């Protein structure tokens, strides 16, 4: 693949006090691909996501998205550039309806100014109807349209995880970072999530995935990076990663043994 580079990370280090979570990490995300980041618990995967999306400050290194440095930008500014993430720990607007969750996600797509809102201009009402339509379309896309009117807190776990993706999609990402989107899903839900991921990809959205479910990772990824103790120990195609002795020793070995046994 000779696609253009979407995100370039170079020499990224992340520290929490004395603890080094990520140490001089360098990699690229290419336009249109599905890139996965794997590694044992505590390897630094979520920390890397947090640094890219502005939730923690990098101790060193550079993060450049389509020519713009993300270092020092706030999470909402990074989202404005088209880099949107989901969270490892389920994160929705619990007290709001499913539809309202997605409407909040549509924030960047709406144009209402505070003055127009206070004056009650017809353009605001028009846009609200349009946004509701878009929100429903997104819910149909992830398969949650039947739940539109329900309060998020009443959804079963698998659907909550879908709602998180719907909210992220509403923000119109060009690069979508998913942190363990299928953790806690049953095999059937995971299988349908893999289909959804293919559809997301079909929209031209680049996907950067953190996941422990190796069946899914191997099935959907173009390339995989393996992280161990904050350092990249391998990168390559799924087949290469599966054969890499260091990856097998540090991470895959136990997982495959567990999955097969």
């Amino acid at each position, binding site marked *: 693949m000779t696609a253009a580079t979407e995100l370039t990370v170079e020499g990224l280090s992340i520290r929490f006090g004395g603890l080094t979570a990520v140490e001089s990490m360098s990699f690229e995300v290419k336009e249109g691909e599905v890139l996965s980041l794997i590694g044992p618990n505590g390897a630094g995967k979520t920390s890397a996501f947090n640094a890219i999306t502005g939730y923690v400050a990098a101790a060193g290194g550079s993060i450049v998205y389509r020519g713009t440095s993300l270092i020092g930008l706030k999470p909402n500014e990074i989202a404005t550039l088209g880099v949107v993430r989901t*969270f490892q720990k389920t994160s929705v607007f619990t007290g*709001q309806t499913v539809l*309202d969750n997605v*409407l909040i996600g549509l924030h960047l797509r709406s144009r*209402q100014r505070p003055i127009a809102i206070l004056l009650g201009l017809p353009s605001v009402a028009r846009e*609200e109807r349009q946004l509701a339509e878009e929100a429903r379309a997104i819910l149909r896309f992830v398969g949650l349209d039947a739940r539109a*009117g329900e309060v998020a807190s009443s959804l079963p776990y698998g659907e909550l995880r879908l709602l998180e993706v719907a909210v992220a999609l509403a923000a119109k990402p060009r690069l979508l970072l998913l942190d363990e989107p299928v953790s806690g899903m049953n095999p059937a839900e995971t299988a349908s999530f893999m289909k959804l991921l293919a559809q997301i990809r079909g929209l031209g959205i680049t996907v950067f995935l953190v996941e422990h479910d190796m069946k899914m990772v191997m099935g959907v990824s173009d390339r995989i990076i393996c992280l161990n103790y904050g350092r990249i120990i391998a990168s390559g195609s799924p087949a290469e990663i599966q054969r890499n002795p260091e990856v097998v020793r540090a991470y895959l070995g136990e997982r495959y043994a567990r999955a097969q046994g």
Partner: protein
Amino acid sequence: MRLVTLAWLAFLFSIPLWMSDLYVLHVLIMTGIFIIAAMSLNLLLGYTGQLSLGHVAFFGIGAYVSSLASLGFEAHLLPGVLVKMEPKPVWLGMLCAVTIAGLCGWVIGRISFKVRGAYFVIVTVSFAEVIRLVALNWVELTQGPMALNNIPALRLGTPELFELSFLRKPANYYLVLVVAVLSYILIRRLVQSRAGRAMIALRENEPLATSVGVDVTKYLVLATMVSAAMAGAAGAIYAHYVRIVDPDVFLFIYTVTMVIMVVTGGKGTLAGPVVGGLIFGLLPEILRAAEIKPEVQWVIYGVLMVLVVYFLPEGIVPAVRNWRRRHHEPATAAAPPASIEPAR
């Protein structure tokens, strides 16, 4: 507009026509002023989830600014720098009050950028205390504890042609009612829009809100500004109604009263502060009319408040809404059209 709303409005507008007891009108006016202030507090507390425990500062600023503008003043801003202003028409003073209170809200919002929860409470409380001390001690400007007296009443129009003067209670009642309805409409527009959703998002899950591009600080500042301007309007109306203002308008108990109204009525609901405001604004008067001893009155007030908060932690309006949903529409509860109703 729904029929129930119309009926309520018609009833409220008709009150001065058949209610001849001026004391009752006075109580309604004061309650209405408090309801406006409570609605403004609800925008912050209920929708952005940030507790402004110095909210009375904006109310007091509105009262003082409008009074001073309409009385005129001469005061030293710095030693040797004399600021002088001729008396201005009351409506202009009220406009200044709303603007300056709104500006103060903007400043507080800016200061509290990154400041949430307990820190927001501290910033707002400190602000209110500073303003109270200024009102108390800048005697040249505010007359301090001697109070600003003889504040003129609002007059609209010109004496030659047609003049509306808000000297008497029915006129003031209508003024409060109109401003309250206007405030309600503005808040409703706000919370049922992109801006309101951003505020709710800040309240419910700030990291998630920022991840989808919501500049939460911007909307917190907007909420604080609108809220402060509205409280300022309430303060201005108050000043020209009672026509005397002293530093006691900044008493902490007034903020607490507003918080009680919002919390018992239902924070984060449009009707909550109105319901809470009516109950806890009228209750003391009803108890007094029933000739219950003052100390017992306050016990009843306190016990009722605790009961509401204990048994209806969400507030009265959400409790009624849930109850109606359960008892009146069990069959339609799952139907899709329910989703169109904004669940705020």
